[in-house]
């Protein structure tokens, strides 16, 4: 007995690998998904449908209705019809609906998380721990404001704007819907929301929640479709306010079209955010900030820290540690609970990312394939990577890639760090890493960015305003400031 056990004593390092840990929560998905207009699911008058697929396999999940001009019109009219009653409802009564929505999202959280992962490709870990809880938190947060609006704007009285057209992107589908809808309806507006065409399913499931909580018909309408649907919505004459999150390119078009119409506009657009690491930072922890800054959600984050500026004396150490750290990033099946980096949202986006990587190499950048995890044979995948030998004039250091691709540059003085960081048409977010408090404030004050994280990155909270400078847009979402785009001050 003794000798038997002795032999089995582990003395050599073990190749201990994690077994597959798939999330198995069963959900059902309708084969055809209709439009949500006036409190009911209705077939599109356009009679057109489009397919939505799972980015991890590129297999079709369901058909989704394409809202044509007539459908958009119907949705806007439904919102318009609901407006008088909803806007006159006491704030405390509106709050009850928001609380119910928040609770219902929590109750159905696992279902939402699984659906988000199937439809969008993000790791289940992130959908479960970030997207869905934050979406619920947003409704809770703005429920709290609904009957306290006059305190948010001292000395002014507050009125809703009217019918809001809201267009959201595919990177945080349910969360962006919550960001848009919660403040809008809390302030007494009604809404027509259009999710991105590759990720419509969680928004439509949120429509089910609206039915469950018996939200008055027409207060929230959800219409699906691609660019044309968005165009019909943006250009509809009965929209009083347009809120858009997406590319700067589309944002500029919307702004041109809205000019002279009297429509209010808020835009949350692209970014090329700087993450600045000083030599006096806690380097091991800064590495974590780099990783969560650029590889979170496959880099599909408008505030991703895609430009890394490292103080020259520590650049080799940072590259060495980052390379080591990236080896432990687990890329693959988004439904596996141990996956850190999931699937790229669509084949088109994958092509865009791959094109940028090629451009980076062609322009003389050195590509570091620090993560060499084997990728699944089907689906859209990109190993996280980074570039060195990059100058601020390189294409990949100027344009938003929206993928897991980082550009590493250096600086010598705080002055140089600030001027390099600000040398971009964008101004959404920035990160500052230093152990010195005075430097944090000095640098943060002079960075032209709407959100600045100090010794952390990509932290979100419903109470904290989010929005950009320059071509990253205007208007704030979240926090008390997030009420302003949805009220008329009189």
């Amino acid at each position: 007995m003794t000798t038997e056990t002795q032999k089995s004593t582990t003395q050599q390092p073990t190749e201990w690998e994690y077994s597959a840990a798939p999330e198995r929560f069963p959900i059902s998905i309708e084969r055809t998904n209709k439009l949500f207009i006036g409190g009911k699911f209705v077939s599109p008058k356009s009679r057109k449908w489009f397919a939505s697929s799972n980015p991890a396999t590129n297999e079709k999940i369901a058909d989704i209705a394409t809202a044509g001009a007539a459908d958009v019109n119907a949705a806007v009219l439904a919102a318009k019809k609901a407006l008088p009653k909803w806007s006159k409802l006491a704030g405390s009564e509106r709050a009850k609906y928001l609380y119910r929505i928040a609770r219902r999202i929590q109750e159905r959280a696992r279902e939402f998380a699984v659906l988000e992962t199937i439809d969008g490709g993000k790791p289940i870990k992130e959908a479960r721990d970030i997207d869905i809880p934050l979406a619920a938190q947003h409704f809770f947060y703005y429920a709290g404001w609904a009957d306290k609006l006059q305190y948010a704007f001292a000395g002014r009285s507050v009125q809703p704007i009217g019918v809001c057209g809201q267009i959201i992107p595919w990177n945080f589908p349910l969360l962006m819907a919550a960001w848009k809808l919660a403040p809008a309806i809390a302030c007494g507006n009604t809404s027509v929301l259009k999710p991105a065409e590759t990720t419509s399913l969680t928004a439509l499931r949120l429509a089910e929640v609206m039915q469950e909580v018996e939200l008055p018909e027409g207060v929230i309408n959800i219409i699906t479709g691609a660019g044309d649907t968005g165009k019909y919505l943006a250009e509809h004459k009965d929209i009083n306010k347009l809120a858009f999150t997406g590319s700067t390119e589309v944002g500029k078009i919307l702004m041109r079209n809205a000019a002279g119409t009297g429509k209010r506009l808020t835009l949350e657009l692209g970014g090329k955010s700087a993450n600045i690491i000083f030599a006096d930072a806690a380097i091991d922890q800064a590495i974590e900030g780099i990783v969560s800054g650029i590889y979170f959600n496959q880099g599909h984050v408008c505030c991703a820290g895609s430009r890394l500026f490292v103080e020259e004396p520590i650049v080799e150490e940072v590259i060495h540690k980052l390379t080591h750290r990236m080896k432990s990033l687990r890329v693959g099946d988004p439904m596996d609970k141990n996956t850190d980096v999931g699937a790229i949202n669509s084949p088109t986006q994958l092509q865009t990312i791959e094109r940028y990587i090629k451009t980076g190499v062609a322009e003389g950048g050195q590509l570091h394939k620090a993560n060499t995890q084997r990728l699944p044979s089907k689906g859209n995948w990109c190993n996280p990577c980074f570039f060195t030998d990059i100058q601020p004039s390189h294409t990949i250091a100027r344009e938003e890639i929206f993928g897991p691709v980082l550009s590493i540059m250096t600086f010598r003085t705080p002055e140089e760090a600030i001027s390099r960081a600000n040398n971009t048409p964008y101004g959404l977010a920035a990160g500052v890493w230093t152990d010195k408090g005075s430097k944090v404030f000095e640098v943060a004050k002079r960075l032209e960015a709407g959100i600045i994280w100090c010794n952390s990155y990509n932290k979100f909270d419903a109470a904290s305003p989010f929005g950009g400078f320059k071509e990253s847009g205007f208007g704030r979402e979240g926090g008390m400031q997030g009420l302003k785009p949805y009220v008329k001050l009189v």
Partner: protein
Amino acid sequence: MRQRVDTVMVEERASSFTQRSIKTQSKTQGLRLALSMIDLTTLEGKDSDEKVRSLCRKAITPWEGKMTPPLPTVAAVCVYPSLVTIASRALEGSGVRVASVATGFPSGQFPLSVRLDDVVKAVEAGADEIDMVINRGAFLSGRYEEVAEEIKQVRLVCGGAHLKIILETGELETLENVRAASDLAIEAAASAGPIADGEVFIKTSTGKVNPAATMPVTLVMLDAIQSYFDKTGVRIGMKPAGGIRSAKQSLHYLVMVKETLGNDWLTPKLFRFGASSLTNDILRQLVRQHTGRYTATYDFSEA
């Protein structure tokens, strides 16, 4: 220069390891590995020869039942110097090592000559490994050279015995102190002569002070080990001790080691748990996976 450490991000990363889902085969394999890394410990004033003998039996044969493949032995039995002779007799030929705390454990508040003598006696009595405590008083008052010199002296009298340096992180309080003490301990041990892989460990706690081992503290110490490896290619070992009681916790630690230092460190040569009640919780889980049934606490021998 002192390495800077940011508590917020350390805690965040440490908690990320607890989010890993370790199931089925990886769980069995991980638990067996954790079992083989345990320094089965008894450090009480009332320790008897009998208790140490029964602990040694447990170390060699953690469970009396049959399992295929057979369960590993634990890594070592850790006792006070006065009980080393008993332990080394009981463990002879088993492959389980004898570890002894020394240097005036747990406080270290003794003259250096007494502490060194403590080590010499333990080694003479047959200890394969010495778990020393650092002079926290000197460290906290900034007398770093004194701390380093003492560690060097201890290593010089260890002879062939491996050395584990207990920082007593609960008394150092801040993570920056933990990192500074880790760096200092490793460098001091190295100043006494070249280190073979696993010949020197850094260890969190005596188990006599709260808090003992925590995930953030261990992570900071692993970072120090990584830095030393990057610089020299030498692998220092790590031993969290105290407060690790459940099988699940032990898996969290293994995940942390795997995702920082890597698979190379997943061996009892380089990673240990200082624990006693952990053993039975691991056994409970392994037996459940083996038989499909939950067991009662009294199904396992106590020591």
